[in-house]
Structures are given as structure tokens and as C-alpha cells.
């Protein structure tokens, strides 16, 4: 369900070679009746689809999404807004902005200062949100100014340092106003026309509305003159300039729009969290936004939203409880095997060999030393019951788990490098080792595991499918 998919291109497209575009279009559609359904769906047009998606999203609290799940939903929507905004800068204008999270922080801090007892101003949301957004747009213009002279990597550097400087600034400068490491607490809820949003359900609906609205605005922007100019500048600034596109102004506009969306998300974040701290806007969160955008597909609005939702559900939702994360982990392994291993005989052989290896190893090690298998799986639920006699977990699992982790990373690298039959054979111990490391270490440290997972998503996606789940592959001229 890509918002950005278009009918088969009649002529050359901006950003895609004609042949590649046709090829990608052919490949984009699923075979048989699924493909037919997909084409039908695409004929509906983007705004009914957006409306349907928005409605479906707002149904979720009605069918029993509550408490912790609702919080995950709010986090997901905020991340989705940020990914959509980042997509303007990175996806459309092709400017690598590594300081994007600072605009989010600016929005949050701006709202916090304008609507809390910190400096004694209590503006209502209709008054403070425009101020914050315009402020962020101006800041975006300022940060974008170097993009007039700097291209590519250099811009990435400057923006990265801008992001770092923002964290340092909020941490150290004017502790009386910005609160230093203690941040700002006691932020007013979003209020408009005498009503206050205090419940999480309210914030959920607000965010759905804001997300749908920003998606619609950006979608219109994308197909406008400005959107075409962004893509032209992304592909070749020199050619764009010779076509009388004001390259610098177009770049600055991308920064300003991205910053505005981020500031809006930041304001809602601050109001919903009731507090802001400098660490909320540090590099790990930037990486999370990028992970969402990359996973979904750079350059596609629907992709950015999908990616952000998936990343949040993995990051916040599933990896919190050991049972859920077990489903995720083993499910992911099985899914990868089913998708990647052909023919079925080979898949069956690998699975059987893995099972046999596990039971044999467990029996042998158990016979040699009882304490070496005394730990039992750290997962919970029925997965643990299934794995009890299969995976070796020593009574004191930390140190063996650590060595297992290092070995696992080495094995995975080796697995990518070798080809043919040896790869299939090596797969068996790798799966078993992965399970061992999961049960001994990763499941106990969900906070670290999810960070590792985000890092791995970035690496694997870039190598395996750089266009993301919903994006289209681009052809770049050799530099």
C-alpha cells in the first residue's frame, strides 16, 4: 500500500532510469490475484487511502488498545511524524541532516518554556504551537544555511555537530531557565478553546490527526512545483540550477518544512510526557528516527510511517517482555529461513539438523557436567518449555553468553562471506548459537538488545535492500 506508487511510467521519471522504473514497477507488484488487488488499491488515489488508514488507526483504542499499548502507539505516532518530516530533508531534497533530532528537541523545549511554570508563561496550544513551529522553521533556515556551500558529507558533519551542540546547550547553558540535566517538568497539557487533553487516549487521537494532516500537506507539497524542485536538486544541483531552479532557496525550504514537522511532534511529546530532558534528544533517538525511515524506504511517505511504526513496535512494545521478544526473535529467524532457503528439502534439512544438534549438544554437555545445563532458558512461556532440553544454559550464563555473542558475530560475518554448500552447513551452528546467546544474554538485557537490533537494522537494510520496504530503487549517476 504505497502512497507513492504511480501507474506504469510512460516516460522517463525524475530520479529513476526508465528501464529501471519499469522493472521496479513490475517487481513491485505481487504475482497473480494479489497483484491485481494491489493495482486496484493503487487506483483508489492517495487521499481516500490516507483517510482509510487514518480511520483504521483511530479505531485501535476502541477495540481495546489501552494502558501500555496506548503509550507504545503514541510513541509510534510521534516517531512516524518525525520520520515523515525527516523524509522531506533526506528523502526528497537529498540533504543528509544528522541534527534532525535537535528540531524535535527545540519543539519540545519551546513548548515547555511557553507553557509551564518554568518561566511563568502559560500559553494555550493554539498560541504556543505556531510560535514554536515558526521558531523551528527559522532555526531550520539557519541550520540549512551551510547547505548553500557545503554538500554531501560536509553538511552531514555540520548538522551532526548542531545536534550534539543542542544537547550540550540544554545540558549546560542557563540552568535556571532550561533546567540543565534535570530538564523542565510540570509542562501544561495541550489545551484549546477551554478544553484540556489530559488522557493518553486524547493524545493518541490528536497525534493521529496531526500525522494524517502532515502527511496530506507533505503529499501535496511533494507533487507541487516545490516537490519537483526538491527532487531535481537531489538528483543534480548543477542541472537544476541551469534549469533556473533556485537551488539554495529550495534546500532551505526543505530544512524549514522538516523542522516544522519535528517541532510539532516535539510539542506534543512535551505535553504528553509532562517533562523534557536533554537526553531525550540525544543521538540514540536520532538513530531511531533514521532506522524507521530507512526500514520503510527513503523518499516515500507511506514507507516512513510504516517503518516508524514497525521500529517502535519492535523497540518499545515487543522487546519489553521476555515472552513477546521470544516470539519476535524466533519468529524472525524462522521467517528469514522460510523466505531465503529454497528448496524446501534444504529448509527441512537445516531445521532438522539444528534441532538434532541442540538435543545432542544438550545431552552430551548435560552428561559431562550437570551445572553446565542447570540454567534453563531465560525466555518465558511455552517457548521456554519447548527449548528446555534443547538449548544449553549454564547455571552462571553471563560469561559464556558473552563469548557466545562475540563468536556469533564472527559466524554471521563468515556466513555472509562464504557461498554454496558450506553456507548451509554453517547455518546450523549459527542458528543454535544465536539461540544460545539469546537465552543466556540478550533476553535478560532488553534495553541493550533493542539498541543492538536498531544498529543491525540500519546495517542489514542498507546492504540487503537500500530502498527499504516500500521505497523504489534509485539509480545514481557515477560520481
Amino acid at each position, binding site marked *: 500500500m504505497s502512497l507513492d506508487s504511480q501507474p506504469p511510467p510512460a516516460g522517463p521519471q525524475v530520479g529513476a532510469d526508465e528501464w529501471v522504473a519499469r522493472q521496479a514497477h513490475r517487481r513491485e507488484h505481487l504475482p497473480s490475484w494479489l497483484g491485481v488487488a494491489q493495482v486496484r488499491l493503487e487506483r483508489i488515489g492517495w487521499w481516500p487511502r490516507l483517510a482509510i488508514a487514518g480511520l483504521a488507526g483511530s479505531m485501535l483504542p476502541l477495540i481495546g488498545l489501552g494502558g501500555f499499548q496506548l503509550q507504545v502507539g503514541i510513541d509510534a505516532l510521534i516517531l512516524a511524524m518525525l520520520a515523515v518530516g525527516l523524509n522531506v530533508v533526506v528523502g526528497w531534497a537529498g540533504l*543528509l541532516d544528522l541534527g534532525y533530532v535537535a528540531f524535535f528537541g527545540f519543539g519540545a523545549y519551546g513548548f515547555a518554556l511557553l507553557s509551564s511554570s518554568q518561566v511563568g508563561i502559560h500559553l494555550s496550544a493554539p498560541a504556543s504551537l505556531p510560535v514554536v513551529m515558526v521558531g523551528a522553521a527559522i532555526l531550520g533556515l539557519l541550520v540549512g544555511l551551510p547547505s548553500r556551500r557545503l554538500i554531501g558529507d560536509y553538511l552531514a558533519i555540520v548538522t551532526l555537530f548542531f545536534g550534539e551542540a543542542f544537547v550540550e546547550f540544554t545540558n549546560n547553558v542557563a540552568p535556571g531557565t532550561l533546567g540543565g540535566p534535570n530538564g523542565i517538568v510540570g509542562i501544561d497539557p495541550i489545551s484549546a478553546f477551554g478544553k484540556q487533553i489530559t488522557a493518553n487516549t486524547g493524545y493518541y487521537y490528536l497525534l493521529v490527526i496531526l500525522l494524517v494532516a502532515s502527511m496530506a500537506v507533505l503529499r501535496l507539497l511533494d507533487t507541487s512545483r516545490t516537490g519537483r524542485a526538491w527532487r531535481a536538486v537531489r538528483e543534480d544541483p548543477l542541472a537544476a540550477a541551469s534549469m533556473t531552479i533556485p537551488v539554495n532557496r529550495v534546500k532551505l525550504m526543505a530544512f524549514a518544512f522538516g523542522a516544522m514537522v519535528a517541532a510539532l511532534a516535539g510539542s506534543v511529546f512535551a505535553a504528553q510526557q509532562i517533562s523534557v530532558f536533554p537526553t531525550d534528544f540525544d543521538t540514540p533517538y536520532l538513530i531511531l528516527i533514521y532506522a524507521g525511515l530507512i526500514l520503510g524506504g527513503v523518499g516515500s511517505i507511506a514507507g516512513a510511517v510504516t517503518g516508524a511504526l514497525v521500529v517502535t513496535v519492535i523497540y518499545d512494545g515487543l522487546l519489553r517482555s521476555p515472552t513477546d521478544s521470544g516470539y519476535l526473535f524466533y519468529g524472525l529467524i524462522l521467517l528469514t529461513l522460510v523466505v531465503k532457503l529454497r528448496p524446501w528439502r534444504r529448509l527441512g534439512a537445516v531445521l532438522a539438523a539444528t534441532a538434532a544438534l541442540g538435543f545432542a549438544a544438550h545431552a552430551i554437555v548435560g552428561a559431562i557436567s550437570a551445572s553446565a545445563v542447570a540454567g534453563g532458558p531465560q525466555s518465558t512461556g511455552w517457548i521456554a518449555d519447548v527449548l528446555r532440553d534443547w538449548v544449553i544454559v549454564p547455571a552462571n550464563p553471563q560469561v559464556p553468553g558473552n563469548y557466545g555473542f562475540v563468536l556469533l558475530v564472527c559466524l554471521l560475518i563468515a556466513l555472509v*562471506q562464504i557461498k554454496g554448500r558450506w553456507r548451509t552447513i554453517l547455518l546450523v551452528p549459527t542458528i543454535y548459537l544465536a539461540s544460545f546467546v539469546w537465552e543466556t544474554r540478550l533476553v535478560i538485557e532488553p534495553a541493550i538488545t533493542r539498541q543492538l537490533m536498531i*544498529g543491525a*537494522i540500519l546495517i542489514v537494510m542498507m546492504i540487503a535492500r537500500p530502498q527499504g520496504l516500500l521505497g523504489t530503487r534509485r539509480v545514481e549517476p557515477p560520481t
Partner: protein
Amino acid sequence: MAFFFQELVNGVTNGALYALVALGFSMVYGVLKLLNFAHGDLYMVGAFIGYFVIQWFGGPTALTIPVPLLLLIMFILAAGVVGGLGVAIERFAYRPLRDAPRIAPLITAIGVSFFLENAALLLFGAQYRVYNTADFISLSSGIQIGSVTIDSVQIMVLVLGLVLMVGLRELVNRTKLGKQMRAVAADREAAEMLGINVNRTIAATFFLGSALAGVAGVMAGLLFNQVNNTIGFTAGLFAFTAAVVGGIGSLPGAMLGGLLIGLAQSFVTGYISSTYTNLLVFALLIVVMLVRPSGLLGRAQLQKV
């Protein structure tokens, strides 16, 4: 005035450290045009290796081998292991993306950096590991000029840093490998046509650069005493600044940049306040980038049409 000179000495020492990290960073950028964000994390791995070597040989107070031998093992092991890690990262993460759009390897590099940082957190925990340098190297046996002290660790860092930098310069300018590296940096395709093994040259560059970061990590452990999984990020940013200020891709520029950053850090901490150190160093970078985007010693690149 004594305070000024003391800060000068500290600044130069730290500068040598940053210069070593920046050199590797700049070398990698030179051959691959890739901002290797994972470079700072390699430095962190080097620091941890140094720590564990001390622990293996009985800990700081009860060393089972003489101190010079210990230092030698620390440096060689850190250089070797971290160099190997750098090569593995290149092979696994960057090589498949060599002809991809420019943004792809950058994001991969961020992913690698994030992965390494959190892998270290998983393996070693979040607490600071302490080298306790003072227990096995007598810090007072340095040079005393008036009221300015240069302690023995600082002397070692300065001398070793200088030796490595001169060695690297000779390697790049005089040897066949250096010639190949320069050729690949200038034009990878043309180099390949002339029979240079590009893959091997890039791997060698990664090994050298990463090994320098590993050595710098051990030095940092000896000098600052504390190691944990986040030191890589900060040091990476500083080295990054150094490389960029000096002119990215230029080796003398990286050294000059490292020195400047070390001095700036030391004087800001000494004369203004340590709370503003990072902020001012970052501001310095942004200003240099705006005024002279190609850095102090870098050459402006002409855009080919």
C-alpha cells in the same frame, strides 16, 4: 604563566591522541570518501583491550611482567585486534556498498557505530573500568621545568604519537603501499586499471587506520584512566572535528587539527569552564566549516560536470 604552560602541555598531549584517531579517520575518508562514524568506537575497543591486558597480567598492583613489556603487549595487541576488526567491518559492512548512493554507507557506518557501542555495553557493562596507571607507572618520574610537569605517561604518549605519525607519513610517501593508497584515493577506477589491487589497498588502509585508533585507545586509558562503552562516541566526535578542521583526507591536516582541538579543549577547560568545553569545540568546528569548508589544509574540490 606556569598555568598557561601546564595547560599547553596537557593540550599538546591530548592533541597527539586526537591526531592519531583523526589520522585513521582521514585515511579512510581519503581512500573511500566515507565518513567512518565507527572509528571512535574502534578507539573504545582498543581502550578495553588495554584494560584486559593489565588484568590478565595480574592487575595494576601485582604485575607479573615488567612494565615496558606490558606496554608493548598492550599496544601491539590493541593495534592488531582493532586493526583486524576494522578490516572485518570494511569487508562486511562497507564493501557491498562501495558503488551505492553516498548516503547508504554513511547510514551503515552509523549503524556499525551504534552496534559496537551497545555490544560493548552488553559485554562489559556500563560501569567505568579503571586502568590505575599510577600504580604501575610512576607519574612523578617525568620532566619538571619550573612549575610545569610533564609526567612519564604524557612523555610516552607524545613520543609514541610522534613516532607513529612520522612513520605513517613515511609509509604513505615512500612505500609501494603508500603509493597505492594515494592512487586509490585519487581515482579508484584508474588505479584498478593500472593493476592496483584496490580491495587489498582499502583493507590495508582500514587496518592501519583502525590500528592507530586502537593504539590511541590504550593511550587514552593510560592517560585518562577511565574506560567505558561511551568514550568512543565523544572521542570520535573530537577526532572527527580534528580531521575536518585540518581538512578531511589530508594527513598533515589531521595532525594539525588534532593539535588545535587538544589545545582548544585544554585552554577552554582551564580558563573558562569545563561545562562549555564540548559546546565551544563544536562551535569552533561549525565556524571553521562555514568559513573554510575544505578545512585549514584541505584543497577545495572542483566539481566535474
